[in-house]
Every structure is written in C-alpha cells, then in structure tokens.
C-alpha cells in the first residue's frame, strides 16, 4: 500500500495548474480529494509521475444558484453539499446521492468534480447528473468549454476531458415546477460502491401525466447508463404502478453489469429494476404525484 515515487505540485492559480498539466501531459494527474486517485496509486494499479494538487486554487469551492442554474464549483467537497441548505431544500436528489457516497470521512475529502472526472461507473454522481441534464465546465489552456453530461462519460474510467483540462464547475438547471428527483442505492455496506442504484427525475404536466422523465442506473455497465428508452416510455403517461414498473424493466434490460462479489449479472439486472421502481416512486412523490 505504498505508491511508486511521484512529484507533487501545488499550484496557487488555475492558470498555473493548467500550465503544469500542459507541460507534463500524460504523465500528470489532477489531484483533488484524492479518494479515488490515491488508492489507485497506493495499490500500484495506476501511476503518475506528477500530481497537480488543485486544493490551493482559490474560488473552486461553492454552491449557488445563478442564471437559472445551480452551480457547483469543481472542487466542492461532498460534505459541503451534504450540509448546504440550498441542496437540502431545493435538490433532494443531490442530497440522496451525497448521503450514500462512502462515509463522512471520505465525504470530507472527496469532491464533486473528482467524482465525475474519475469516470468510474461505480460512482454515484454520474447517474444523478445524467437525469438532471447537468453540464460540466472544463477549463484548459484555451479557456472554458461546456460539456453536456450526456457526452461526458465515454467508457470505463474514460471521459471527454483532455489531460490538460480541469473540471471547474458543474451546472444543473434549476428544478421546474411540479418536478421531483430521487436517488436510491443498494449497497452491501456503508462505503461500498452500488450493487445497483437508480436516479430518477419526473416533471408532471398540469393534467397529471409525465411531462419529462429522467432515469439512469449506476454500476450497471462501463459507464452510468441513461435509460433513454425507459424515459420515452414514461413521457405522456399517467404515472401508475404498471407504467413505472414497465419503464424500470426497460431500463434494467438496457444494462450490461459485470458479475463480481456484489452479485451475478442476472441479480444485478433485477436489482436495477427494483431500484428503478423505487427511485421513480420516490421522485413521483416529490413531484407531488402519487
């Protein structure tokens, strides 16, 4: 549990950090909360000649609503989300998510940007961000670019980020009226990655039918899986039990989980379905439906 040698850099500004990343290219890694990166290095499953710690760069930790968007600084810690009144009152789906990420010790260190940038299908934020239609703001040598989260996750531990880009902000559209979201995770113990988890969001039309729906599953394939077919099934329907069940089944069918110590693939798929139903029901209740 001792990493190979590396050089440690602690830039004081974003420009300096991006500069270091450009200079060292593939040999460099952003170090944020370190809760995913350091275990990899310690187990010698990964190596980096240079670690660029972004923890001393001012202005990357915030949670605010501005311009119709919830804006979360790229280096905002999970524990900050957990204790934010704004998140608690307006974004229960994010609170659901944060509370099932690891444990308080990890959450004190781990960051939202790192959780997305790591590209780990076992991480919990990606599914939530997918159903919320989030945008990832990446800052590189040429300045900022905005990546829709749908285009962010490319594969296992692989994202649309370039080696010299830093996630500086995550943007989430403010919730519409009569909308609700929920994240439901099933884990073997606290701190474990999901056996399966589901994020759901629902916006109801005035007539009580589903105007807009989001559904995504965690740890059920090489990336978090957005269940577009299931979402389409839901739109325009009255949200009764059979409709939710059928969407959940469609969502689970579209997954390709790996067998591991958490369970065989058939079990995991079934858990995807069971949790999708539970998440949809909870989201619906929060949207004011029943």
């Amino acid at each position, binding site marked *: *549990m*001792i990493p*190979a*040698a590396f050089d440690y850099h602690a830039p004081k500004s974003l420009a300096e950090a991006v500069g270091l990343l450009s200079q060292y290219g593939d040999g460099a890694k952003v170090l944020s909360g370190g809760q995913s990166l350091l275990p990899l290095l310690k187990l*010698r499953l990964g190596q980096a000649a240079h670690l660029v710690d972004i923890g001393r760069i001012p202005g990357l930790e915030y949670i605010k609503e501005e311009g119709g968007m919830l804006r979360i600084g790229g280096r905002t810690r999970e524990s900050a989300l957990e204790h934010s009144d704004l998140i608690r009152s307006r974004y229960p789906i994010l609170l659901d998510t944060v509370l099932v990420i690891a*444990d308080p010790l990890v959450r004190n260190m781990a960051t939202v940007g790192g959780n997305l940038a790591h590209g780990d299908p076992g991480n919990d934020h990606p599914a939530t961000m997918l159903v919320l239609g989030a945008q990832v703001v990446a800052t590189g040598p040429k300045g900022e670019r905005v990546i829709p989260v749908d285009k962010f996750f490319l594969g296992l531990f692989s994202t649309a980020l370039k080696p010299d880009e830093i996630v500086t902000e995550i943007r989430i559209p403010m919730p519409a009226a009569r909308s609700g979201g929920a994240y439901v995770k*099933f884990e*073997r*113990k*606290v*701190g*474990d990655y999901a*056996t399966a988890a589901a994020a759901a969001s629902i916006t109801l039309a005035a007539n009580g039918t589903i105007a807009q729906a989001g559904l995504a599953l965690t740890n059920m394939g090489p990336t978090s899986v957005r269940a577009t077919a299931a979402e389409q099934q839901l739109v325009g329907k009255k949200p009764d039990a059979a409709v939710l069940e059928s969407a959940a089944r469609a969502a689970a069918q579209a997954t390709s989980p790996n067998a591991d*110590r*958490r*369970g*065989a693939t058939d*079990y995991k798929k*079934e*858990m995807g379905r*069971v949790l999708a139903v*539970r998440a949809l029901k909870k989201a619906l209740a929060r949207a004011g439906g029943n």
Partner: protein
Amino acid sequence: MKIDTTPEVSGMGHSMKRKEDPRFIRGKGNYVDDIQLPGMLYMDIVRSPFAHAKIKSINTEKALKIPGVLAVITGETLAKYNLHWMPTLMSDTQMVLPVEKVVYQSQEVAAVIATSRYIAADGVDAVEVDYEPLPVVVDPFKALEPGATVIRTDKKDKKDNHIFHWEVGDRAATEKAFAEAEVVVKQDCYIPRIHVASIETCGCIADFDRVNGKLTVYMTTQAPHAIRTVFALVAGHVGLSEERIRIISPDIGGGFGGKVPVYPGYVIATAASVVIGKPIKWIEDRMENLQADSFARDYWMKAELAAKKDGTITALRIKTLADHGCADAAANPSKFPAGLFSICTGSYDIKHAFAEVDGAYTNKPPGGVAYRCSFRVTEAVHMIERVTDILAQQLKMDPAELRLKNFIPKEKFPYQSALGWEYDSGDYARALKLAMERIGYPALRKEQAEKRARGELMGIGISSFTEIVGAGPSKHFDILGIKMFDSAEIRIHPTGKAIARFGTKSQGQGHETTYAQIIAEELGIPASAVQIEEGDTDTAPYGLGTYASRSTPTAGAAGAMAARKIREKAKKIAAHLLEVSPEDLVWETGKFSVRGAPQRSKTIQEIAFAAYTNHPQGMEAGLEAVCYYDPPNLTFPFGSYICVVDIDRGTGQVKIRRFMAVDDCGNIINPMIVDGQIHGGLSMGMAPALMEEISYDENGNVQGGSFMDYLVPTAMETPSWETDKTVTPSPHHPFGAKGVGESATVGAPPAIVNAVVDALSHLGVTHVEIPMTPERVWRILKEKGVAE
C-alpha cells in the same frame, strides 16, 4: 450479585471506567508501529500471485540496485541456517520462505530490507520471480480423492492431503439410537472461511543487540511467553537462548485469535536482525493481513439429530471435514486437533452422541485459528442450534418449546455430557425465558402471522448456546507440551498500593481494569491504586496468553489466589500488630479486626507499611505473592439470544430489527466491560452470518482479500443490541466467574440464521447457508416465487 466493596475500592461488580481508556481515547496508545528505534530498518515482503507454483528462480539484482535497499532475503538465505521451515502450534510444519514451491496465493516469497518503508516497497516491486504454475487444490473434498495433487510434497512418504482423523463418543450406541429413532433430521452446513480482521494488522520490530547477544522483539502477539519458548526451541541451533530472548507485546489493536500463531514475517525479521545487527520493523498492510494470515472456521459439517415424536432429542451425530489450507496451523490445545468441537451437544440433555472430524490440506493460507471462539465452539454451536430448529420445524413445534423440553435441567449440574465434558453450572431455561419475556415473544409470533398473511417476510430466531472456555486443566490441556495454566504476581508497596503482573495479554479486553478490580475485591486496595502489567516476558510471570476466553478463568483466578496468599501473610502481620493470635482476626474488605472488638483493627495499608517497617521477627519482610493457577475444570458460560429479522422482498436484504441477548457468565467483575464484550461479540457474530467470507476461485485466487470485498460491518449495519443477564456462578472458580469474551460471537450467528429460515419456513425453506447475503436470500425468494 451482591456488591461488597465501595465505589472507591471498586471490587467485583462495579462498572468502573476502564483505566486504559484515557490513553486510547487521546491517541496515546503505544502499538508496535508506534515504536521507533535508532537505526531501524524496514522490511517488506514479496508475495506469490499463484496458489501453487514451482519457483524457478528469484532475481534480486534490480532490487539490490535501488539506493537504500540493503538485502533481499529468500528461502535459500534462511536454508543456510535451517530456518526456512518452522513448526506450527499443532506440530505440523509451515514454510517461512520457500525454496522449491509456494502453496498458497500471497505466500511470502522473499523479503526486502531497506532504509525506509517506501524504499522497501519499491524493492518488493523490483524482485523478479519466475514461477511455474502447478495444479491447484481448492476443494477439501476433492483434496481427499484418490489421485488428487499432493500439496505437502515436503513430507517424506506423504501420498495424500489428509491431515488427521479425530473422533469422540460412542459410535455404536449412537447408531443404535438412530436406528430406534422415531424422527431423524439431517442437515449439511458449511461455516465459511473468515478472518479476524483486527484493526491493527500484524507486525514486529526485531532488535538483536550484537554486543549483549540479546534479542528483543516487539510483537503483535497474544501469547508472548509461549512465543519466547518457541523461538528458543526452534532457533536454539543458531545461538538464541531463552534468557536472551525478550518478547514485548505492547498495546495490541485486537487479536481475536489471529495473533496467537507465529507468522513467517516475525521469523524473517528476526533472522534479518540477527544477521544485520540492526532493528528491523515489519508491519503488514491490510491486504497482506487478510490474504496471508491465519484464517478461521472453514468447516464442512453433516449433522443428524434423532428424536422421539414428542420432541425429546435422543442422539446426535456429526461428521466434519476441516479445510486447514496448506498447514495445520490452528492454535488449539495440542491434544485437540478439532479444538473443543465436542461441545456440539450444546445445551441439551442428549444421551448418545458421536462426532468425527477429518482435516485436509488445500492450496490456501494455513490455519485455522479460533476467531473469538474457544476452539471450534462457533462451528459446534451453529450446527446444534440449526438442527434443533430443523427438528422443531419438522415436528411443527415452537423452537422455544423444543429447547425448553430438551435443556439440561439445572438440577443435573455438574452435568456429564455424552462427549465427555463436565458442565460446571447452568440454568438454561431461566435465560431463555428471560429473553422471551424481554423481547415479547408471543406478541412477535402474532405479528409474524399477520405479516405473513400480507405477504411480508418476518422471522424470529433463537439460539440457546453453551460455551466452553478457560483452557485449561493441565491434565488435558497444553500447547506444545506447555501446560495451560496462567499466572499472576502481586507486590504490595509500603504505602499500600500495588503492582501486579500477569501471564496473559490484553488486546482490548480491559485487563488493566478488571484484574485491578479482582485484587481490589480480595485485598480492599482501591482498584485505581493497583497497576497492572502484562506482555513483557522479562518482567511478567510465565503464562499462555489471552485467547479462548481464558484470561478470567485462569489468570484472573491466579490473581485472586495470589491476593489470598497475601491476605494470609497480612493476617499474621495484623496479629503481630494487634498482639492477638491470627485465629482471633476477622477480615472484612480492606481490614482485619479483632473478633468481638471491631474498633481494634488494621487496614491493609497499615499492614503493608508494617510489612516493610515493622514485620514480625522470623517472618520475611515484604508483601508479595505469585500464583500459577491450574484450573480444575473449564467454565461453561451460556445464554439465549432471540433475533427478529425483516427481509426485503425486492433485494433479498436481511434487516435485523431487534436482537435480545441474555448472557450468563457467572459472577461479573465489571458489568460495563461485560456489556462491551457482548456488544462487540454480537457485531462479530452478525458479520459472518450476513456479510463476511473469504473464498477462492478454482485457481486459488482469494476473493475478499481487501476491505473492499471483505465486508466488516460498521455501526451503520449493526443493530442496536439489547442485553440482559442471569448470574449462575461457576462452582469451581475462585470467585465464581466464567469467561465471556466469546459468548456472543459464538451464540449470535445461529440466532440470525434461525430467524431468516423462520421468515421463509412457510415456503418450505429449512436451511440457509452463511453469509446470508442479499443475493443468496434473493435467489431463494425467486425460486419460491415471492421476489418483488
């Protein structure tokens, strides 16, 4: 239980706060890894990726080129001193470092000595080993089939993987009882391989002083004295002599049986220190600890219970296969290859019983240690409590009623069991009835019926266990020939304070508090003024250490007996001071007074002062005593646990809603500490029932070799335990106590399994194997058509 001392004295029965806690709470404990010696070097270990492979070559060149890497030790290096093999506590042998082949994944292959921990790790990465994989034997049943690959080719003439056969009981009488039985139930049951996973991993600092020829080893060990003797016996030929070996066991972060064995790392570090002449620190990381250190359990049992139609149990028969991995490295008393498994008749008056156990070698780490379990008692209790429930199910009897019908009645104690034990004392019905009353048993049964009607899955499970702890009487109990007594040495200072040293070693049990309370009870010296020391073989009296719930039954008893010797001498001094004859004195806590003239008295403090300042002519000065206590019998703690579970039909997850534990460990020294032991033990009993398991794939790759997959429960998974007690003193123990550290680990698992089976019994389920993971339970739900 009557309390005889004031809170200031805090003898037996006071929930005195733990004397060791201020240092632990403030982070001032002193563990092996906290110790820094001048000039200290670091060792790290190269481990095998294969479960069974020939070692073709080990290339150390690249490693030795790394600045700071001083040496790479291999089996060849140790072979020069004939230290590449070592004996296990079960008189088997185990490799320290291999010369020819490895026999389990993560086995030690070579050790790198370097100037820092970081450099040592880089050195490990740079050692190149060329392996030639050999066929792997994982399944112990297949290991015993003719033609199976022989693992222990080091043993001349060994043509199979069989280690031992052991049996107990009257086979013929048992067979007859089965032939005549009105009802017979059978069950196969596997108790998986698990790991103690103590928070502190294993490690040592070996410090050989070349000038004085003295070896000091700071070691994570539960049994420092035994280790010293083992070192002297196995390394005598290289000049280590017992008076020049000092084993120091400092603060220990949990042992649970996993710190009884001698691990190769200790031996390699010691050999390296002797050769290099510098202190060498070796500390395992978590994965090494889980993957290579001794495991526990791994018992494949087949049990049968014979009964009459009215539920009277008449006979028990158990056949077991024990998977020992590549060496029998259990830490049982030497004459007991299957430990105390013969407690398997449990709490029931069973006339006929027969049990047999065979041991097999497989390509897995050696073991098995008694993980918070007095030598295979967990396995025995699991089996008897399971088949008892299965019998109840078959006879459509309430499991509580069946137990009450078959308990050994309290008038029958001391009770001779069919498998040869003399149970010291017990009142099993009282404990079960108390548990039923506390949890509201009839109301729960009613609720269960209602829930069942609605399709909800709720179960209630009982376990009424009997433990067997406190090894043990010298007639039967020894480890490598050393009898399993334990010891205490007490010195009273002139001002009436005391220091006492013991042959045991606390790893969290609170000995610094409880031993002081024993002495406080016997002598009336406040427990706060009695300093307790253990774990340094240069100062403490010889003892076999702490495991198997033996400390209170053996060393605790030694403490009381030594204190009584002191009291005898104190009486003579008091008689001298009061100018009466000793027969005229009466003792009440803390003082002797003249019979009929209570105002004429001498306190223990006054007497202590006199022992050094004014002792009678013809008497030696001072006030101290030693006792090596050889217990006349083991102690038999017991209890009844009731568990209530709800099962999530969607996920298969089992939730423990309530768990009521009634324990009886005889007279209690410190109720708070006993409660702590029970709470911790219950959590450690829940763990294998629901979560923990180490298994292997067909190539012998360990599954569950890190905390990612070895699921130790946290506070979040642990229910709020409810506890209560009955007190049935041990008739033979000096102050009526029994061991308690392991009762809950032993008693809890079957209560949880019985609850889960009970929740599913209406679907025709009679048994569920552990760990009862959500997936395992969900598969049953699916098969029975009740999954959500």
